[in-house]
């Protein structure tokens, strides 16, 4: 036995870990064919972030004046999380902005990793090496833009190998960093929109620059309206994009490669799941309307005050919201009637409030929509330019651009109404700001007209439920000063324009100081 033992021992000391269901780095030699997969996670994080649970969409909309998630008979109190979003009482442990932070940095760290692997030759790319690195840096800049807009003062990390605790940067530094990165990579980015759908190409990067210039006053204290106009002009003149003739087509389930879309987050009900905007908004009974293969959850809806600001003949009202009686797809029976009224953040019925219908739901939809999310689209470029013109005293030129965008909204109802004047854009908002009581009455806000309120209304109608609203109403001062629905201006409203650094990050990185006011 001793002899047997002696012989068998060496083989019985081998503790090498055998790996079967993972790809061990040292065994994997990536080639050209693997490059799309290696780049993919940089974009992949965005899908769950944009239209997924408690993601970017909710951060931008629930904190603003168009969409609310009231508690309902089937729940949706959820520890007060939606109420805090609505009333700006979020804390460093609020999930939604934390998700945004995590997901953005996931894209950034992935980009850093892949860049360093390419630069070190671990990932061999021969042709188009600079172009791949440029794209990765552009997406990284995009992820930093999300942080710039939402958290402001965050660390900038560009080297994957460096795992030392990063230092915090100011919002202005971050803004400069993103702009300079974009300037550097622009020459290497593709200008061919048709082969880069879903990726950040030259025009997407330009639109991103325009966005940063548009909000420059908020980000850095110095407005950059002329830069907005310059950048937008290049996109308008050379980008080859156009407005879709039909507003609804931009958001259709078959909206890939729309002529209007500059940068999309593509979704697919099989390969690219994560667009659950319909699940959160529809009542469970709406499944009969669309023969859905999932039972929706029944949560968020439109703020009645916003709905009331629409022109009745504006086609975007119907194209953006699901309202009124809904009918069973097979039997034709009415299954639910969505009412405009919502009594409050509490005490809402399951059918209160118009639902988000912008991302059209096809028959037989699953829990995950096919509709791509247009993060940047051509109308946005036109409206950015219009806003810059408006704010630099060129209201008449602005009105022409806005009219151009409005035309398709009234084409089937009253084309004359598409025309908008400079006075309207400069004048006050049609949004009846003020606190809403349970009976629907409004304690009308007495703080005066919103400057350029007419233009803000246009942004609202055009971009409702596109995760634009928080940024826009911050720029117009509404976010900090107005009441809407069950929201009153926060006592420290000026600090609410950026979110706190997530508590977990503060705890694990002592170089980070909390944003002011938290």
């Amino acid at each position, binding site marked *: 036995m001793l002899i047997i033992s002696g012989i068998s021992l060496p083989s019985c000391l081998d503790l090498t870990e055998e790996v079967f269901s993972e790809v061990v780095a040292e065994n994997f030699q990536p080639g050209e064919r693997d490059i799309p997969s290696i780049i993919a996670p*940089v974009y992949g994080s965005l899908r769950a972030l944009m239209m997924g649970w408690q993601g970017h969409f909710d951060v931008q909309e629930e904190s603003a004046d168009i969409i609310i998630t009231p508690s309902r008979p089937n729940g949706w109190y959820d520890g007060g999380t939606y109420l805090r979003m609505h009333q700006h009482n979020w804390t460093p442990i609020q999930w939604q902005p934390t998700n945004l932070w995590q997901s953005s940095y996931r894209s950034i760290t992935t980009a850093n990793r892949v860049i360093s692997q390419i630069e070190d030759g671990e990932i061999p790319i021969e042709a188009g090496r600079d172009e791949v690195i440029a794209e990765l840096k552009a997406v990284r800049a995009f992820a930093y833009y999300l942080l710039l807009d939402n958290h402001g003062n965050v660390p900038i990390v560009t080297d994957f190998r460096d795992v030392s605790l990063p230092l915090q940067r100011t919002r202005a530094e971050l803004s400069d960093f993103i702009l300079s990165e974009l300037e550097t990579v622009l020459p290497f980015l593709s200008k061919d929109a048709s082969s880069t759908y879903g990726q950040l190409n030259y025009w997407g990067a330009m639109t991103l620059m325009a966005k940063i210039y548009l909000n420059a006053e908020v980000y850095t204290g110095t407005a950059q309206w002329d830069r907005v106009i310059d950048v937008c002009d290049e996109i308008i003149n050379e980008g080859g994009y156009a407005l879709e003739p039909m507003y609804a087509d931009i958001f259709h389930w078959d909206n890939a490669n729309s002529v209007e879309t500059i940068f999309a987050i593509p979704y697919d009900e099989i390969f690219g799941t994560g667009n659950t905007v319909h699940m959160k908004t529809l009542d469970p009974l709406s499944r009969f309307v669309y023969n859905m293969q999932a039972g929706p959850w029944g949560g968020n809806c439109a703020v009645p005050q916003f709905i009331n600001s629409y022109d009745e003949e504006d086609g975007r009202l119907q194209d953006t919201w699901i309202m009124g009686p809904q009918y069973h797809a097979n039997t034709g029976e009415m299954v639910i009637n969505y009412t405009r009224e919502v009594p409050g953040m509490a005490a809402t019925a399951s059918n209160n409030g118009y639902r988000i219908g912008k991302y059209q739901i096809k028959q037989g939809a699953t829990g995950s929509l096919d509709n791509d999310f247009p993060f940047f689209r051509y109308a946005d470029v036109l409206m950015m330019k219009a806003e810059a013109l408006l704010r630099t005293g060129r209201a008449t030129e602005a009105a022409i651009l806005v009219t151009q965008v409005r035309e398709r909204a009234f084409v089937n109802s009253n084309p004359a109404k598409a025309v908008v004047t400079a006075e309207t854009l400069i004048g006050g908002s049609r949004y009846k700001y003020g606190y809403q009581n349970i009976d629907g009455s409004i304690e009308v806000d007495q703080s005066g007209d919103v400057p350029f309120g007419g233009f803000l209304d246009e942004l609202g109608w055009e971009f409702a439920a596109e995760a634009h609203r928080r940024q826009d109403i911050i720029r117009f001062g509404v976010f900090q000063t107005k009441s809407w629905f069950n929201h009153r201006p926060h006592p420290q409203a000026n600090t609410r324009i950026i979110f706190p650094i997530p508590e977990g990050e503060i705890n694990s990185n002592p170089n980070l100081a909390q944003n002011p006011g938290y």
Partner: protein
Amino acid sequence: MKIFTNGIYSLVIIGIFLTISIQARAYSTVKKIYISIEGKGAIESTEARTISGTVYSNEDNLPLPGVSVVIKGTSTGTATDGEGNFTLEIPDEPTTLVLSFIGYVTRELVINNESQIEVRMDADVASMDEVVVVGYGSMRKGDVTSSVGGVKEEDFVKGAVRDAAQLIQGKVAGLRVTTPSGDPGASTQINLRGINSIHGSSQPLILIDGIPGDMNTVAPEDIESIDVLKDGSAAAIYGTRATGGVIIITTRQYRENRNTVSYNNYVSIQTIARRPQLLTGDDYRRLIREEGIPYTDYGHNTDWLGEMLQTPVSHNHNLTLFGGNSTTNFTGSVNYRDWDGIFLRTGQQRLTLRADLNHSMYNDKLRANIQIINRIFTANRGGADGYAYRQAMIRNPTDRVRDDQQNWQERDGYFYENPISRIYEYNSESRFKEMRISGSLIYNPLDNLDLKLLVSSVQNDTLVGNATTFDHTNTWLNNQNGTASRSTIARVENLMEMTANYHKSFGRHILSVLGGYSWQDATNESFYASNWNFPTDLYGWNNLGAGAALQTGQAGMGSGKDKWQLAGFFGRFTYNYDDRYLFMSSIRREGSSRFGVNYQWGTFPAASVGWRISNEPFLKGNSNIQDIKLRAGYGVTGTIANSPYLSQISYNFNRDQGAFIGGNWVQGFIPARNFNPDLRWERKMEYNFGLDFSFFKDRVSGSFDIYRRDINDLLYSFPVPVPPYLINTMMLNAGSMQNDGAEVLLNITPIEQREFVWRVNLTYSTNKNKLVDLSNDQFEVSNQFFNAGGTGEPIQDYTHRVEVGGPIGRFFVWHTVGVSESGEWLIESQNGETIPISEAVQEDRQFYGNGIPKHILGINNTFIYKNFDLELNIRGAFGHDILNFQRMFYENPYNTAYNMLNTAYDPVYGQRLSTDLAYVSHYIESGDYIKLDNVTFGYTLPRLRFMQHARIYASGLNLLILTNYKGIDPEGVYISGFAPGNDERDKYPTTRTFTLGLNVTF
């Protein structure tokens, strides 16, 4: 380098085998003697005469074969035959006979003129001489210097016992066994000396005849004894597997001349204990009429909970045979158990077969054993899960199960389904098969040297199928047209151990040396496939390809494989001087594939000392003191990460992280985790001080232990900053934890008469836990706490917080101090003010109560009167709190869409609640209880010619509970993990069980 170290270890192990020393019988037992004679017969007056007699065991009234009968002072003697009879020539004068048999108290009988005698021998209950099982061997209890506990077959809990752990429930101080679920397939929950790991498992290592397994590996009826290695000094020889303690199960084996066939059978029924009382249909109508509460009245009266409950009848059959002789013998058993549950369609069947063969050769120099255990667990079930239970709780009691057309009455609502349709429209079948084969060879080249080789292979397979019909929610709600899936898991675990064991005594010195090597590897493979959109629901899961979701790309499929290896060298040295001073030390050097290359090997030492004060000259000979022993021990054990590969630098292709690149959907190539090649095990260092005692001829005995456990290098999914890391957690060795505790075991025999015996076994334990630190060299500052536990929706909140400097198990909650006139909770703010809950912020939460009991008590009484026996087991736990989910979700009248407890409208702080469901301290209740858990009443039938032994019994489990807790069962709560004391809403309620049983031996 690796080959070199391997070589070194080979030399070391061979060296251990060759390090042979000397030793003599250390364990000769000094028997105590007392006599009772029942003589009868006539006088004969020859010089030599013949005496004959029969020897019985007093324990079970069976004849005792093989008993040595010797005339005192001579070598003349005989042994009893298979029937316990002996015949012996003795001088015709008063003669003293010495009767001895291993495991029995030796008796001396003075024979005057009897020619026929009947002798009864008592089992040797001298507690210090009992043999207890320790790691890789056994020891005389008196020699043990560590904290170990053991329970033998005769002291097991009787009745419809769920698994091996329940046999010793409440009988080992510091080992808490609870049954959190009434599901027939569910296991017990075991915890030894508190929570000792964050991410690893706190589960003990369970060995069945030396081979790792679980509490269900063998049927409870097949178990002879269960020993528990509690402290580090005892467990350290098992290294990285032993932080949760070691439970050693010894199966029943052939003993000398135990040629018997025995059959055990029981039948049991169960009922729900403390069933929740909900509003009835009539209550609804009254509330609508009298108070205008906006309930929907469908006009019926349905007791939904009653609809899903049944009174299940379960049975259990066990047949065991022992046969052979001292050179070749076998044990065989068949166990069949068919248990049904209180929920409809939740039964499980188990068939366990065991064969154990022993053969010895060359004058007992070589002994061989082969054991085979085969078990098959089968369950054909419906959809009666925790979720169905929730649906039964919340469903409108004025509704009905089926509509006029006899279809299921479904309604629209969010998470609102007919529980009975779920039960019948979901089908599943699972089959678990395991074959364990083990073999051992023991060779005695020298008298006091044993060389042992043990090898085993355990192979098991699980095959599961489940499907829903067209009438299930998946179809009527989600349009899936039938769903089905199939999954299978295959697992192979191999073990090889070589040990060498020597003992030697010279003069007053006794020493022993053990050395050994152990290898273990395990491979897991899995596969699953699912599909839906079937043309018919008649296929179930048996024609998966018929579903159309495969073609539309929505079907699911997956497979995986993993493997780990563990190698260890171990040695132990014990030394005993004059039965007074005892010393033990052990060491294990162990390597695991589950850790980073830099940390594959670790060392786990242990040492303990004992002082048998009772053997000191000043106490020796005192007839009232059998034993007093002081013990002190120290030992290091480890906890290994649960899953392999945590230290690997590896990637995965992942669809979720894929994207639309270059006009195609591609999968994302992503790192499997934040890489940490420095991962290692947790280290637990434990100090244990103990006292063993036995007084008044063992009528009062027991032990007392105090311990401290310091656990360092806690494996923890540590929050790391993002950036620079990819994801915000990383498996790290971070922080430390401490457990302090004390345990008391007391065995008392208040009455011991010929016809009446009363024995009491009392256990008490207390434990105090503290998270000392959560930090790591890599990160300067760490989170000082982490949150744990969740309420589930619609409250969606965490329940516990574990903070550095505090114990595990504390609830972290808004503290309610009242209810406002509008029916809103009033809570205490961080500044001590009273504010409505709508104004409360996270910072207002505070610690409130702890889910882990401070004190745990077990009291076990055994009464024997003539042929009757009665056992009463009482357990209690004190100093803890329970979050009553049942009340948190169902004792609030705010949401009239769902049914609720009939106490929901009762005033709280003088007001009726009119506020959303919320997690507040009001629902955290004292969990203290005393439970009369097991009452067993048995009767042993008078002996019959063809039957050696027969006993019938009736037993009740979970009979009576004294508590202020308002939920179903304060003991039926999960206490492991970091959210102990959450009495979850979706549960399978614990039950009350009544059993009738029969044991016969031929």
